[in-house]
């Protein structure tokens, strides 16, 4: 295979890559001009649909299919929401795109709105990205001045406004209906679906929610074509007619115990081991890896023996992980206590559960309480089964919650305990030699809070 040249990251690292002048100098907005001159909204929508582009935000739903769920001949307005509430632990590719190449994003937003006939787009950005916010803001101003935004864009009967909307440090706003509720000025409680946003989204109007990296893929599809996109990645499984495949380039975020953490672009389907060795310069300090998060902490854990798993949309699921998620790989070296890992994970989800569904609110809080007690030397073997009971019963998959946050909380619990049970049992026996066999009810330790 010829060496893969980065496309999504092609401009990143160049001087003033965030400015319109540099972006246009690299051929930017040529694709937009071409599509607006030569295509129709439905024609471009069909082209994107035919690439089988899957959303890069975590769920991997086919983007063109999502767009096609919008009602036909709707009187409007139709809204586009761009999800830049990137908060999944380990994930930072949207930040890099927004800081270094905001116009690639905006070109994709404009193209996506052209295809979906959306007339207003909101970019929902997390508060913790001040530089991204400033860069996106400036880029939007440049677009208005250049006639890429506003009324009658490039002379076509197509008008679009893009507004930035800042969140306030809540992970749940990355869930698409939580984002919509937050945008409307309410608590970011995810909605029961249906109706799906395409039918009734923000302000009761048809809405599409797409991730930042997804719209960058739209830009590249417009510039390079459907065939180019489908020449990269992993084709659909011929034995599974419902598999849309894993086509296109992907941004992999690599962090944790590697020599060179960073955001790297590779064809979908690179293995976890290739990513760590070829891009990350191997595990740091000459140590061995113990495990890795395959795609943000919600996806669970790969053991070192599972590192040859391809990181495409169906790879991690085959070894018991939740999925590809955000493709953020976090490497844990051999010195990491798996108890500490799970405590960190449970603490995150207990803090970020929005509290709407009881199984998630209580399940995440109690799993943290149990991990706190285990770490304090008062764990019992029975706690592992209690934790697994939580892990197996909270989430969309067992059908007990509205959104997938609880599935994300459950997977690290299930993977860590099922894949590293001996280590948990050893830890509990060693730290609680007199009480590890107890099974009666015990009081929770107070959890140290903040905020």
């Amino acid at each position: 295979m010829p060496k893969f040249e980065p496309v999504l990251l092609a401009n990143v690292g160049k001087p003033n890559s965030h400015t319109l002048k540099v972006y246009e100098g690299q051929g930017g907005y040529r694709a937009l001009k071409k599509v607006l001159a030569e295509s129709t909204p439905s024609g471009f929508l069909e082209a994107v649909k035919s690439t089988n582009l899957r959303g890069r935000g975590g769920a991997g739903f086919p983007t063109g299919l999502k767009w096609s769920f919008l009602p036909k001949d709707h009187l409007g307005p139709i809204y586009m929401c761009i999800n830049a509430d990137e908060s999944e632990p380990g994930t930072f590719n949207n930040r890099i795109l927004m800081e270094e190449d905001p116009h690639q994003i905006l070109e994709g937003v404009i193209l996506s709105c052209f295809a979906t006939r959306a007339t207003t787009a909101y970019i929902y950005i997390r508060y913790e990205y001040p530089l991204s916010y400033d860069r996106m803001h400036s880029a939007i101003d440049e677009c208005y001045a250049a006639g890429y935004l506003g009324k009658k864009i490039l002379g076509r009967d197509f008008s679009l406004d893009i507004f930035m909307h800042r969140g306030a440090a809540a992970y749940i706003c990355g869930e698409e209906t939580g984002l919509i509720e937050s945008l409307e000025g309410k608590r970011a409680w995810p909605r029961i679906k249906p109706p799906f946003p395409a039918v009734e989204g923000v302000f009761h109007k048809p809405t599409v929610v797409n991730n930042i990296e997804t719209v960058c893929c739209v830009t590249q599809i417009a510039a390079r074509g459907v065939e180019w996109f489908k020449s990269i990645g992993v084709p659909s499984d011929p034995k599974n007619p419902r598999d849309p495949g894993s086509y296109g380039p992907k941004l992999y975020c690599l962090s944790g115990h590697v020599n060179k953490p960073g955001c790297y672009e590779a064809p979908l389907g690179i293995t976890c081991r290739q990513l760590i060795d070829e891009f990350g310069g191997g595990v740091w300090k000459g140590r061995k890896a113990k495990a890795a998060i395959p795609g943000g902490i919600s996806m669970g854990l790969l053991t070192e023996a599972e590192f040859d798993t391809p990181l495409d949309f169906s790879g991690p699921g085959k070894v018991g992980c939740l999925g590809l998620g955000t493709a953020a790989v976090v490497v844990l070296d051999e010195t990491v206590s798996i108890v500490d890992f799970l405590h960190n994970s449970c603490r995150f989800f207990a803090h970020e559960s929005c509290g709407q569904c009881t199984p998630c609110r209580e399940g995440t809080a109690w799993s943290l309480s149990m991990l706190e007690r285990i770490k304090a030397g008062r764990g019992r073997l029975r706690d592992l089964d209690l934790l697994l009971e939580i892990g197996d019963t909270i989430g969309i998959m067992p059908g007990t919650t509205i959104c997938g946050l609880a599935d994300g909380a459950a997977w690290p619990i299930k993977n860590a305990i099922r894949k590293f049970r001996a280590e948990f049992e050893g830890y509990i026996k060693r730290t609680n030699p007199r009480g590890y066999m107890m099974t009666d009810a015990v009081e929770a330790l107070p959890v140290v809070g903040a905020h």
Partner: protein
Amino acid sequence: MATADRILTDEMIAAIEAYFPRYPTRQAVTLPALHVVNERLRYVPLEAVVEIGELLGLAPAEVQDTLSFYGFFKQDKPHGETRAWVCRSISCALRGGEEILDHLCHVAGVRPGQTTADGKLTIEFAECLGACDYAPCMLAGKALLKNLTKESADEFLAEVKRGASANGKKS
């Protein structure tokens, strides 16, 4: 209401009203309005909640309902001149983020969420700041401080104490 009785200044009201044309409902301006007030006062007291409600045509309880969801807006007293968020999520924790948070809190004499007695610094823990390539990291005002060590954390505290805080454009 006379200007003197209001907590929202004319400038804040104008800044909030500038958001109105962007959204089809006034309620959607809730978060922008909270940010406008919080950026200027460093907190959003209940009086401001009432006045935001009046501007947006909402009951104070509707604004407070949204505000209280986020855990981001302080209401009892302003946060410090610099608000520093130290990441404790997995990528930073694997590279010593929690030790940096402990160290900063210990030296500054506060617990996470608290403000130093001189009012200069509030230290908070953060969940993933999305800068895992620079772990462990901290967001201080608008500045992302990367690859923190105890030494660079000490330098940061010294800068804050001198008043040359990291609220600027440095990244």
